[in-house]
């Protein structure tokens, strides 16, 4: 177990280093930020001075080395636009994104698993069919368009919910959160629902497929033949066995929810890290782009690592040696 964990940790770190290089190369290959930051009327001397001040006149590898040294000390450069450390900018906005992602995942789980179970138990009934039709729709609906329709319906037409912002926040453990105030909840409702729809459909399908397969297994047939009440067969024998893949997917999807928050945050002007990324791309604010990508990639690699290790610890059928070589 320890050997597997260590090997997996080594892989994760390798991926992180490779990603950091790719991101740095890629992002520093775009445009020249000096053009954006210096007054268009500025002369050549002024331009050179600005380039030198930003460290952009040094050889490429030296820039990367400087960047890497800084990154290891938690310094990812200063934002060209706001002139504050990029990492601080990201970390300031990250709690809002995490709150949104957490709320969305909660909504998806609370609705998706029960609906999927019903659809799996009664695949041919009208309710099963309706749930599945709904999940196809949920899969097909582009997130950003659902967001627009939500705003159209609940903000413009009905006037029930605010279309943008975070609302009133309360400081909890040093970070501002929205979900503890009524105003904050009203602001959180639409973005969270918007972000949840895709994951909700995914969980419905996953739970349904797992349930259908589990119902055909011998242990379920046996449990039924033994005369166990249906409630126990479903609650213990079916649900317990389909939970491993579901929990795995929920873990893995947590990262994807954070990535997709970019879209939802842009629509609802939710002041999180995703909106910051889009603004930074438009302003060619390279240090912030690099910092966002590195923070997100790190979160991802961490989530994948934890899920992998937990998975092999939870599921006795996964042999650790095989898991490492097959993947």
């Amino acid at each position, binding site marked *: 177990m320890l050997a597997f964990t260590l090997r997996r940790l080594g892989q994760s770190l390798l*991926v992180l280093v490779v990603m950091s290089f790719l*991101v740095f190369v*890629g*992002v520093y*290959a*775009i*445009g020249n930020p000096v053009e954006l930051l210096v007054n268009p009327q500025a002369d050549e001397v002024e331009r050179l001075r600005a380039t030198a001040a930003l460290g952009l006149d040094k050889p490429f590898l030296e820039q990367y080395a400087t960047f890497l040294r800084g990154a290891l000390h938690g310094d990812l450069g200063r934002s060209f636009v706001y002139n504050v450390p990029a990492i601080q900018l990201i970390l300031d906005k990250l709690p809002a994104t995490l709150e949104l992602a957490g709320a969305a995942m909660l909504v998806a789980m609370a609705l998706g698993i029960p609906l999927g179970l019903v659809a799996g138990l009664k695949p041919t009934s009208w309710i099963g069919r309706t749930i599945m*039709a709904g999940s*196809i*729709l949920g*899969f*097909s*609906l*582009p*997130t*950003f*368009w659902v967001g*627009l*329709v939500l*705003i*159209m319906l609940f*903000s*413009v037409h009905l006037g029930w919910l605010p*279309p943008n912002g975070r609302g009133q926040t309360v400081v909890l453990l040093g970070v501002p959160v929205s979900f503890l105030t009524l105003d904050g909840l009203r602001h959180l409702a639409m973005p969270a629902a918007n972000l949840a729809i895709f994951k909700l459909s995914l969980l419905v399908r996953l739970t349904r497929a797992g349930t259908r397969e589990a119902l055909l297994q011998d242990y379920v047939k046996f449990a039924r033949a033994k005369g166990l009440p249906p409630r126990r067969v479903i609650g213990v024998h079916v649900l317990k066995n389909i939970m491993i893949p579901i929990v795995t997917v929920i873990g*893995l999807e947590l*990262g*994807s929810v954070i*990535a*997709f928050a*970019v*879209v939802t945050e*842009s*629509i609802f002007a939710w002041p999180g890290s995703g909106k910051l*990324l*889009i603004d930074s*791309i*438009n302003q060619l604010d390279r240090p912030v*782009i690099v910092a966002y*990508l590195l923070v*997100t*990639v790190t979160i*991802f690699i961490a989530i*994948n690592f934890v899920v992998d290790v937990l998975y092999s610890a939870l599921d006795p059928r996964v042999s650790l040696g095989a898991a490492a070589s097959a*993947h």
Partner: protein
Amino acid sequence: MNSAAGDTPLVTEAPAAARSPWRRFASEFAESRIAMAGLLLLAAIVVVAIAAPWLSPQNPYDLAQLDVLDSKLAPGEHSSSTGKPYWLGTDDQGRDMLSGIFYGLRISLSVGIASTAIALAIGLVLGLAAAYFEGWVDTAIMRVADIQLSFPAILIALILLAMMGQGTGKIIAALVTVQWAYYARTVRSAALVERRKEYIEAARALALSQPRILFRHLLPNCLPPLIVVATVQVAHAISLEATLSFLGLGLPITEPSLGLLIANGFQYLLSGKYWISFYPGLALLATIVSINLVADQLRDVLNPRLKR
């Protein structure tokens, strides 16, 4: 082409197997009425996309045909100059939304299909190579695919577009990069199962050449799962392109895809001018839903595990 070539037909299936594989496939597909509805809708959308220049009341890219006095008209209102009605209203430049949607469908569909086709070709070759050569080739290809698949498509696309900037070629490149790994993985796992079957052994015993075994015997039998994945991926690609264009990172504004039309209308949404965003979104939704309905039924028909 059909899975019938690969599996051994049961005795009870004899009457069905007697028909040609294509006929059987078609009749199994037609069993679901909702899938047939999806197929019809998809066919209609494709026809509209191809025939857009002849169906559209206006050429939405020709600035000379746009009348600024007609900007932001509600659906059904008439042009102030020609008196012709705008069935779905106009946008801020006086562009007829119906024409914009027809042309937008064209762009969205072609970007989706082009990127899927290229990614399919790349993934197919790499996946087959991984399964056939095994060893370090397999490890190298699959390790890259696994690492890539552990990140969500939108994040990778965002990184790539943040690096490369906008443009049709660039967004297709980003969509291809995002997609190839799905095909490589699907082909590889199908090929690993198929290559152990008797017909491959028979082909080897006949001393057929390696490329012939690979492409004429192995590949056709790996196609069913690949067709399903590719169908779903076209829908994903269209949706992803629309999302990226909506964020302002996708296609250039000169020839708007559906995503850009929606983005363009977003700023007028809060003032109640819903149609600029709403109808292109509906067209996008219809496209994606119809493709997904077809893909769902394809999955059921082509899945040997669900064979009745």
